[in-house]
């Protein structure tokens, strides 16, 4: 009763604390969302692979940029894992040109119908050479849409392609992804090499992975098997980015705890005389601290109610080229961590509460 009554009667004081908490929630949600967005821009397309394992050529040092699997390697892996559970993926950096506009893209090749086929959100999947799927991030940042003709250039050869669909697979190394059939990719990536060209960059494997990875590495020469999450972390810079974002979130959490803790510490010091009255009337330190915790939770809830919508509004207001992805985990990071920070911060006040001597309610003795 007492804790919430005090909040109701001291609206300005607690309103300001709630506002600051809301801004802290907003800050942490935005940091988390920017971190997720940045990570997605680096590795979203790989993270979207519908696979448990990713097989690289061992001499590529597990890099999608350098990995090249021969047709023999691919066939041997397919034999071990089953055709239905595998899919080759080719990768190359390329440009898409429409009229005078040129955009860099991360171009992937895949075999239609295999597990490497991306999910199409509008239009249809590519069936043959001369067709391309573009990621939503590309259509949002350009005027490109399904039905448009684009030109892709590699090794001074132009390839005319028709956009037949749009996908939402994310980006790779900060570039929007685009998808063509594997034969098209081989032709563009290794022009003039014909049957001697590598079959794919990597091979995706799905299904029972008990000791499949070990068997592939043991039976097939120059093959390196990573789980999908390991493959994501193997992308250059991703692990470092994750660490930086985590460090920023951690400092935000610590600063949040200190800011909120300081507020409640000052508030507790200001209320020392009231606390002495409560203690003189028979309230225990635990009771008073319990009331403080209730206030912290109430203020944190109001802070969440302010910070979360603010983050959502910001997401819609920001330009699409800013890598911002507000996810459930962003809200958890922002909301839960600030609530925990507030509770931890309020522990600073616990000692103050215990130290208040009830006899001070009598004034000077």
């Amino acid at each position, binding site marked *: 009763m007492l804790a919430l*009554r005090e909040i109701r009667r001291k609206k300005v004081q607690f309103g300001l604390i709630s506002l600051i908490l809301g801004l802290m929630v907003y800050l942490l949600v935005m940091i988390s969302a920017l971190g997720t967005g940045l990570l997605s821009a680096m590795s979203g397309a790989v993270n979207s692979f519908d696979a448990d394992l990713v097989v690289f050529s061992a001499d590529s040092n597990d890099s999608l940029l350098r990995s090249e699997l021969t047709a023999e390697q691919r066939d041997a892996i397919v034999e071990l894992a089953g055709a239905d559970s595998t899919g080759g993926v080719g990768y190359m950096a390329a440009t898409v040109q429409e009229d005078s506009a040129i955009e860099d893209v991360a171009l992937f090749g895949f075999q239609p119908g295999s597990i490497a086929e991306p999910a199409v959100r509008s239009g249809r999947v590519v069936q043959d050479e001369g067709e391309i799927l573009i990621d939503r991030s590309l259509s949002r940042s350009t005027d490109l849409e399904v039905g448009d003709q684009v030109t892709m250039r590699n090794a001074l050869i132009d390839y005319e392609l028709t956009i037949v669909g749009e996908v939402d697979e994310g980006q790779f190394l900060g570039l929007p992804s685009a998808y063509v059939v594997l034969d098209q990719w081989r032709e563009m990536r290794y022009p003039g090499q014909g049957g001697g060209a590598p079959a794919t960059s990597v091979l995706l494997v799905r299904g029972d992975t008990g000791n499949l990875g070990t068997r592939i590495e043991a039976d097939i020469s120059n093959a390196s098997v990573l789980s999908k999450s390991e493959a994501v972390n193997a992308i250059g810079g991703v692990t470092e980015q994750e660490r930086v974002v985590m460090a920023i979130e951690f400092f935000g959490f610590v600063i949040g705890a200190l800011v909120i803790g300081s507020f409640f510490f000052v508030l507790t010091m200001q209320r020392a005389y009231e606390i002495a009255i409560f203690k003189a009337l*028979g309230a225990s330190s635990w009771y008073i601290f319990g009331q403080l915790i209730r206030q912290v939770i109430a203020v944190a809830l109001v802070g969440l109610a302010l910070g979360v919508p603010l983050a959502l509004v910001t997401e819609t207001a920001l330009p699409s080229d800013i890598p911002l992805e507000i996810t459930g985990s962003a809200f958890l990071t922002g909301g839960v961590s600030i609530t925990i920070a507030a509770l931890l911060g309020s522990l600073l006040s616990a000692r103050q509460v215990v130290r208040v001597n009830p006899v001070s309610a009598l004034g000077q003795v």
Partner: protein
Amino acid sequence: MSPHGQEVLAQSLTKVFGSGETAVEAVRDVSLSVLAGEFVAIVGPSGSGKTTLLAMLGGLLTATRGRVVVDGTDISGWNEAQRALFRRERVGFVFQGFNLVPYLTGEENLLVIPAISGKLDGEKRARARQLLRELGIENRAHRLPGELSGGERQRIAIGRALMNDPLLVLVDEPTSNLDSERGNEVVRSLAEEVKTRNKIGIMVTHDRRMLTHVDRVLEMADGRLQSTEPH
């Protein structure tokens, strides 16, 4: 318990603040006994130790030497948690300057006592309303202390002291913020409450005009009880 009924008993109470050369003996070897239904005043100049004595009798301070026995129970060796429970259940304080919680209405200030005991229910709310009615401030019950007059605040403080139906009603300088007419009215109503409800009333005051309402006057000087004069 006394053969006459409930009582509060102080035996050779001494309170020393500080230690070594800076030690101050605020109360020295004080013994007294107050029975239920009695309203006793402790008078004396500032610094004579009367508020310290009141704090020891109410379990707010522990004695350096001696003991306090309330209704047959020695509270001298109790820890803070035990003394907090004792204050919650057996003591009603009327503080100097009223000490009402400023963000709670008059009625809510009375309900603080059951709230901190975890016993806030309809019965307690009814009791608070009844006390406010008896003290003549029912129509001001939903005002904050800042909106009440000095007399009204003091009556709220008396109501709060009686809320837990305590054995001991301890009153510290109840008239310090009131004019003499209001002060007189407050002390008279306190004396009435103590007698009607058979409480043990002990009031610390420096205002000798209020002594007409008490049964006995205990005079303190330099931490010692000087005399006990029946009134």
